[in-house]
């Protein structure tokens, strides 16, 4: 069995599942989720087959697996669509289907499968205690989403990748707005549909720019020199042709672009990076991700932790050779890398500061996601390619775990609320507390996830990846390093805060008291992911500490790049820093929230910070800012400029003018006809025409044979004439 064929097949089952559910099985819930889960399992199996085949391969990375078919003839060259597996793809194939599978299974329990339909539930609102009314639709969307993600992973060219990217955007829209009929009491709280629109539009901003970059790159591959370099492959977007072709990359790096001072590679890189900024919610386009938490929690876990946002980072990692074209170890950073470093580091810090003050258990995780993605982007910015990929993987594991855990908590609290008919926000951490005993499995797994996120030394995966990033930052760029250390500390702090508020102390509400552990479909995925959150880090420990684990990851992934990047020599300093940061943050959080747990109704101790607290709690007023900068003017333009001036005055006026003119012409015709044809009975045109008709109509015998006879006579006549000319009797 050829691997490239398997690669082709990987994305197929989910989309098949989507159509099957949509068209056939949507009546039966069990059938629907069976189809979805089986399909994703098939994809997972295929991915694992591919993965374990490729890690055995000799110098894999120099030689990649893949195949492509001619898709669109473009003039003298053909645009080829295809699939590609290099080490990076292999890593993605290892964890993406895994997380997806876990989340699929988890969703079965989360959507209350098996319980009867609650009569109070309305379609389009979250179910109270019964099964989700749109159960099958949910799984259909999830499957479609998995299809988009897997397509993006196995794609071998930017266009196909972009296709998957957009499919995911659509699914994210559909799933965030899954409970489209939901409304809240206070108008300031954003509704799911609003959040969906917000997410869609915000990410569009990035995607458009990204498409611009793709188009620009494509154009650059069709120039004369490009043809000269690429040969037959000219006019392509394939990674194999572009990223594995050092000559072409350096040609791009040298070529000056339309913007003065930027090389083509730099400009394209920046464009693509802006796409990533939109997709993985980097500053300033981060605003959609926290609101995206309005969707069901499995969606938050899948889209906004494991898959979609990491797709953004995956894109930049994938395009890293282009971004870093012309950069060499120790040399000055290229503009895209500078941008990545700056924005990534800033986002990491800024998001973690916001996360410190959030009350909503999911919002905290959302902001931590943003900041972790910032970590990765910053790492890429300073050339820590391997570290970024590594953190991408581990983060996917523990963040998916955390989200599912939080979902489990929320579900439990909702259950409690249903039990003690109490009306409260089941996501607010200040309504929880003391769930440690109520839901032990959730607690322990959440604890593992949290420690991994905080980077608890040596035993969690997050530690190794984050430490690697810090090490590279320390070696390459001190500023980034310190920023990241601070945000790491904050990360540990708010993680502890979250754990303490949620699980320790006494229940602060009846709901929390009556909360209970969830069904196995929800807990088993937690356990499974917890294992990975713990041990997936040991594939990438620094080789100086090799006795603690393995060091294959770096070698494996860095084989993707054309020119070797030398990992910085190991120094103990950054590791000490990261250990201190993690432990310090955790202990600080424990001191503030853990020692004396909050009673019911007690305020957050951090309010002592005063205005800063409110500033952070309102997320630096970014939504309001955007509303003021973009929202109002847009509405003003729409209402005044477009509607009143354009439509009413110009277009309608022109139309009226044309109508008037046509009316006038018609009138002229009418008058002329009246005085030449109709009115004068004797000399008008009507009479003679009538007479002619009466005279000549006789030839219309209506008998087909007459007509044919006449036709034959004419034919004969012409034939005779031609014959006479032929024999020369006629000139």
């Amino acid at each position, binding site marked *: 069995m050829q691997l490239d064929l398997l690669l082709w097949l990987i994305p197929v089952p989910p989309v098949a599942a989507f159509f099957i559910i949509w068209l056939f099985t949507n009546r039966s819930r069990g059938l629907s989720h069976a189809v979805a889960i089986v399909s994703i399992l098939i994809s997972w199996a295929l991915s694992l087959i591919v993965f374990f085949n490729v890690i055995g391969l000799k110098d894999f990375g120099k030689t990649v697996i893949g195949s492509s078919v001619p898709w669109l003839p473009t003039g003298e060259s053909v645009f080829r669509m295809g699939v590609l597996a290099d080490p990076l793809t292999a890593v993605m194939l290892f964890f993406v289907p895994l997380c997806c599978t876990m989340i699929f299974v988890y969703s079965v329990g989360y959507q209350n499968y098996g319980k009867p339909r609650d009569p109070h539930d309305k379609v389009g609102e979250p179910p109270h205690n019964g099964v989700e009314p749109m159960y099958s639709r949910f799984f259909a969307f999830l499957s479609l989403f998995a299809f988009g993600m897997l397509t993006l992973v196995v794609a071998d060219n930017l266009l196909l990748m972009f296709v998957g990217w957009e499919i995911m955007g659509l699914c994210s829209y559909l799933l965030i707005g899954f409970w489209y009929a939901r409304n809240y009491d206070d108008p300031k709280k954003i509704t799911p549909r609003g959040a969906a629109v917000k997410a869609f539009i915000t990410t569009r901003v990035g995607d458009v720019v990204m498409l611009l970059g793709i188009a620009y790159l494509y154009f650059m591959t069709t120039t004369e020199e490009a043809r000269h370099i690429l040969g037959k492959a000219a006019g392509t977007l394939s990674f194999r042709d572009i990223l594995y072709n050092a000559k072409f990359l350096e040609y791009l790096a040298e070529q000056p672009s339309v913007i003065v001072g930027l090389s083509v590679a730099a400009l394209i890189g920046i464009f693509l990076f802006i796409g990533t900024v939109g997709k993985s919610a980097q500053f300033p386009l981060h605003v959609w991700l926290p609101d995206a938490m309005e969707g069901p929690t499995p969606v938050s876990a899948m889209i906004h932790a494991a898959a979609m946002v990491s797709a953004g980072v995956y894109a930049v990692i994938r395009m890293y050779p282009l971004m870093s074209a012309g950069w060499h170890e120790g040399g000055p950073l290229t503009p895209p890398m500078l941008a990545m470093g700056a924005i990534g580091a800033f986002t990491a810090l800024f998001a973690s500061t916001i996360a410190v003050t959030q009350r909503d258990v999911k919002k905290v995780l959302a902001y931590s996601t943003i900041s972790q993605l910032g970590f990765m982007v910053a790492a890429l910015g300073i050339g820590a390619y391997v570290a970024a990929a590594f953190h991408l993987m581990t983060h996917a594991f523990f963040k998916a775990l955390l989200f599912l855990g939080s979902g489990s908590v929320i579900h439990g609290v909702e259950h409690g609320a249903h039990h003690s008919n109490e009306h409260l926000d089941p996501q607010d951490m200040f309504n929880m507390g003391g769930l440690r005993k109520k839901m032990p499995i959730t607690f322990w797994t959440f604890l593992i996830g949290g420690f991994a996120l905080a980077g608890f030394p040596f035993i969690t995966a997050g530690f190794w990846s984050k430490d690697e990033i810090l090490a590279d930052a320390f070696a390459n760029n001190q500023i980034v390093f310190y920023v990241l250390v601070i945000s790491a500390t904050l990360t540990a702090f708010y993680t502890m805060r979250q754990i303490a508020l949620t699980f320790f102390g006494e229940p602060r509400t009846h709901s929390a008291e009556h909360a209970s552990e969830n069904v196995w479909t929800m807990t088993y995925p937690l356990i499974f992911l917890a294992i990975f959150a713990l041990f997936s880090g040991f594939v990438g420990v620094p080789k100086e500490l090799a006795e603690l684990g393995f060091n294959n990851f770096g070698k494996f992934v860095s084989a993707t790049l054309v020119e070797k990047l030398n990992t910085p020599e190991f120094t103990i300093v950054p590791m000490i820093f990261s250990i201190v940061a993690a432990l310090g943050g955790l202990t600080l959080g424990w001191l503030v929230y853990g020692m004396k747990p909050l009673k019911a109704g007690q305020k957050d101790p951090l309010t002592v910070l005063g205005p800063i607290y409110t500033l952070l709690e309102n997320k630096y007023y970014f939504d309001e800012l955007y509303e003021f900068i973009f929202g109002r003017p847009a509405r003003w333009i729409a209402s005044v400029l477009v509607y009143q001036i354009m439509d009413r005055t110009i277009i309608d006026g022109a139309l009226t003018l044309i109508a008037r003119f046509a009316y006038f012409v018609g009138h002229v015709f009418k008058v002329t006809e009246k005085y030449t044809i109709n009115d004068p009975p004797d000399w008008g045109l009507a009479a003679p025409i009538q007479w002619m008709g009466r005279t000549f109509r006789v030839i*219309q015998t209506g*008998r087909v*044979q007459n007509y044919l006879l006449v036709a034959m006579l004419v034919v004969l006549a012409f034939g005779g004439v031609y014959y006479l000319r032929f024999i020369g009797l006629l000139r």
Partner: protein
Amino acid sequence: MIPLSWYLTLAAALFCIGLYGVLARRNAVAILMGVELMLNAVIINLVAFWRYNQPTVIGGQVFAIIVFAVAAAEAAVGLALIISIYRRRSSVVAEDMNLMKW
């Protein structure tokens, strides 16, 4: 050996006979028969030309086959028309079918 012109003359004669039938018969079915004769003449021409000019190229026979198909379609539709006219007006005389006159 037979010269090509004999075949063509035969075809022409058959064609003209059919033409006469089409022009002169009153019964629509008879007219249809005349049309069939003409088509046969045409096919004779095709095959004869194929045999005499380019017997190695099969195109001529293919052309003949296509004409066969057309003839079959023509006969089916024509007879269906005649029958439905007969249903409506209980007549198959071509001269009576002159609704389209003045």
